[in-house]
């Protein structure tokens, strides 16, 4: 039978689909740093995600958000997976779509953690990530919290108190 799915092609398809079973795993500590002009000391995970996928572009008070990324570092892979729920390649493609459809401007890039700290310290409204906690007169480390987890913990403690 001369159709799209003859036996030979079907065998290849099954083999091809079988290749999709790989699932990579990654996890590490990531600290979020911001320029000291930014009037926040904590962000929720969702707020951080919105910033890094271009949904949120302005801090409170009309200050432009300047996200900084370091795609060449392994820390970048861990950061985007943890906070944007995207792999490194998906994150890149997401931004390519925004940039080439006119819907966003690509984040500033750094090639090392040292450069990341420099860029965050030099740009008002800048935010970035590093592998250890840093606090200087130009850069501060902020807390990232999981709002849903906090609500759950609060509800749980409330329940315990009532007992």
């Amino acid at each position: 039978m001369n159709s799209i799915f003859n036996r030979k092609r079907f065998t290849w398809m099954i083999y091809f689909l079988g290749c999709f079973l790989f699932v990579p795993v990654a996890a590490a500590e990531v600290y979020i740093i911001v320029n000291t002009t930014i009037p926040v000391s904590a962000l929720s995970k969702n707020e951080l995600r919105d910033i890094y996928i271009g949904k949120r572009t302005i801090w409170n008070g009309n200050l432009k958000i300047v996200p900084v990324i370091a795609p060449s570092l392994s820390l970048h892979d861990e950061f985007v997976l943890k906070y944007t729920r995207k792999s490194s390649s998906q994150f890149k493609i997401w931004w390519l779509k925004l940039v080439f459809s006119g819907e966003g401007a690509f984040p500033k890039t750094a090639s090392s953690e040292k450069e990341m700290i420099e860029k965050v310290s030099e740009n008002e409204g800048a935010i970035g990530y590093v592998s250890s906690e840093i606090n200087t007169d130009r850069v501060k480390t902020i807390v990232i919290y999981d709002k849903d987890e906090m609500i759950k913990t609060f509800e749980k403690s409330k329940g315990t108190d009532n007992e």
Partner: protein
Amino acid sequence: MNRLQIAISSFFILFSACMASYGMEPVSIHGFVSQGYIHSTGNDVIPDSTNGSFEMNELGINFSTLVSPRLRMGAQFFARDYGDYGNDQVNIDWAFADYNYKPWLGIRAGRMKIASGLYNISRDLGSARTFIMLPGIYMESFRELFVGIKGIGAHGYLPYGFSYVLSFGVIDNPSNFKDSFLFATLLPFTVKGTAARMTGLSPDDFTNVRPTSVTWRNSKNIGLVWDTPLPGLRLSGTYWGGRVEEEMVFEMSGIPVSQEVIFEELAVRVVSAEYTFSDTILSAEYMTAPFYAKDQPRRKLEAYSASLTHRFSPLFELGIYYSELYPHYDDKDGSEEREGVPPNYYWYKDFCYTFRFDISYNWIFKLEGHVVDGLALNPQTYYLDDFGDVKTHWEIYLAKLSYNF
């Protein structure tokens, strides 16, 4: 590139220099270029593709800047060659000002991309997707229609993961619609068939059928995306369309005739679902495209597809999709032969497999194969003198190298 485009480019470069000198945000410049090779068996996709063709390339460059924290302006120039279409003519792809009042409300004015399905907005950029040729719902042969809408729009992010885009104006393409496959090739077939039925003459009695003008009116584009509570699951619905007025001329048994064809509605509706799990993306899309001319019965194109992609490493990604496209949703086997073409022109079933290699952050190379059943909306097979001279089951092979910065 015409004078207007040169003027806009020069403006951005000078504007950038001025802004930089005042310590303001400089103009960001990004671009891409890709060169493809296509080889098909049995039928041509573009002229002479059965012998292999390099007439498949795209290039674009964009300029954008933040005038203030809330106001962004930008423009992108785009050129492509796809056989007889495009021919590397540079056009404005998008050019608009975007004021972000609040995250839930941004206002745009200018020429904007059309949201259609999950991937139309980024279809020019090969690096932004796995596949070289998109599934049938993106109708490559109708690409001129999908380019942009000129007018005003709104967009924003709403609570519970919803986001929206609205645009009103006219569907617009600087490279003349009347040279497009739809208006220059496909509609003349329909007109010949309809005129023959109405007059009792043969379709061959109607010759030199061609459009002299195509005008869109009252066009709109609506898109809604929902990032569901299930992480990685995104649902989307889009609509775009409007009223089209087309002036056509033809000869009826040697007598010149002029005819206005008015499409009360020519639209594309797409619903999509995409699920991302780690490095795997699963998506499914369904499209209907209703169109009906004044005093003619309603007609509808239908297409659907499902795709699966997986990235194995930063270097390598694999993808497959299966897609079906029907120009007449109520005559999928072509038994009614409404357009004077054989039944195998009434469907297009496509199984595609792609190997994507990210050679570096900026360079991407892709290899792709298609196993195809049917000929619907494949431009080259409509130009043949003998429709019996085609292959219903055929294959397409492509390679493409892309660079973006």
